């Protein structure tokens, strides 16, 4: 047992256009803006969004502070996980609102309907809905020997 047990884990992402990103996350994920701070020159230092029960911090690209967004980096090595009541409707809405499909929604061997989109700001979101209550052993029995056509669907 560690003596440094954290009190919480949050996510802080960087985007080139904070207003557009807040509008997208509010429209598609039902995010609520709680707090916003700007630099004197008007750039958004950070916005705190509530997404479901969790917190998402978002900053505009400010290269001198090493706050660099995915387009500048040429991609993102991180995936954000969002659990939903209805993955299909949110996935469709995300795509209609400008996200691109990385992995279409499908039933996955670990008991979720699951799909991946890349939002208009270059961040990757895995969207899922719990479908079956599987024990770890049941899931292990279903793990494919290797990814089939890159999707890992069961």
């Amino acid at each position: 047992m560690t003596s440094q047990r954290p009190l919480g884990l949050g996510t802080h992402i960087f985007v080139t256009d904070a207003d557009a990103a807040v509008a997208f996350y509010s429209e598609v994920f039902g995010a609520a803006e709680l707090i916003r701070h700007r630099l004197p020159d008007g750039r958004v230092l950070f916005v705190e969004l509530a997404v479901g029960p969790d917190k998402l911090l978002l900053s505009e690209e400010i290269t001198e502070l090493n706050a660099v967004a995915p387009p500048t980096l040429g991609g993102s090595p991180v995936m954000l996980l969002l659990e939903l009541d209805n993955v299909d409707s949110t996935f469709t809405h995300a795509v209609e609102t400008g996200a691109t499909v990385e992995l279409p929604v499908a039933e996955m061997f670990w008991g979720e309907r699951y799909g991946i989109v890349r939002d208009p700001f270059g961040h990757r979101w895995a969207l899922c809905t719990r479908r079956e209550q599987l024990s770890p052993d049941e899931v292990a029995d279903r793990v494919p020997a290797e990814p089939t056509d890159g999707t890992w669907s069961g």
Partner: protein
Amino acid sequence: MQSAKRYIQIDSIRHGLYHVDVSSTSASPAVTTAGFQVLLALASGHSHGYAVMGFVDQLTAGRVRLGPGTLYRTLARLVADELVAESETSDPSAPHDARRRYYQLTQRGAQVVREEAALLSRLVDAAGDAGLLDGNRRTR
């Protein structure tokens, strides 16, 4: 394959019973602990931000202190979820400070706090049945 199994075990913990059963069977948004405490304070007639903070501090014998930042975030989230509304008595010219403003439960907020209270009550009853409240339990 070992790493896949490890992921699966972590995954099963992430989807613990509370998360799945509470959030997916209720049409109302799940409220956080701080959210419930604020709703409870408003239901108890404390409508001013400072009064909400004082109520929670007193109720929990100082174990839970809603600082101004947490109070502001919690109220903003509850307002966004339409569980709480700023009341008419708010002074619109007052500084943007949640502690200085007045709030009230919406109809939906009143419903959500009732449902959450009923759930917590069942849990507390179970805790009593399990002998966890011996010595400091109020009679039902």
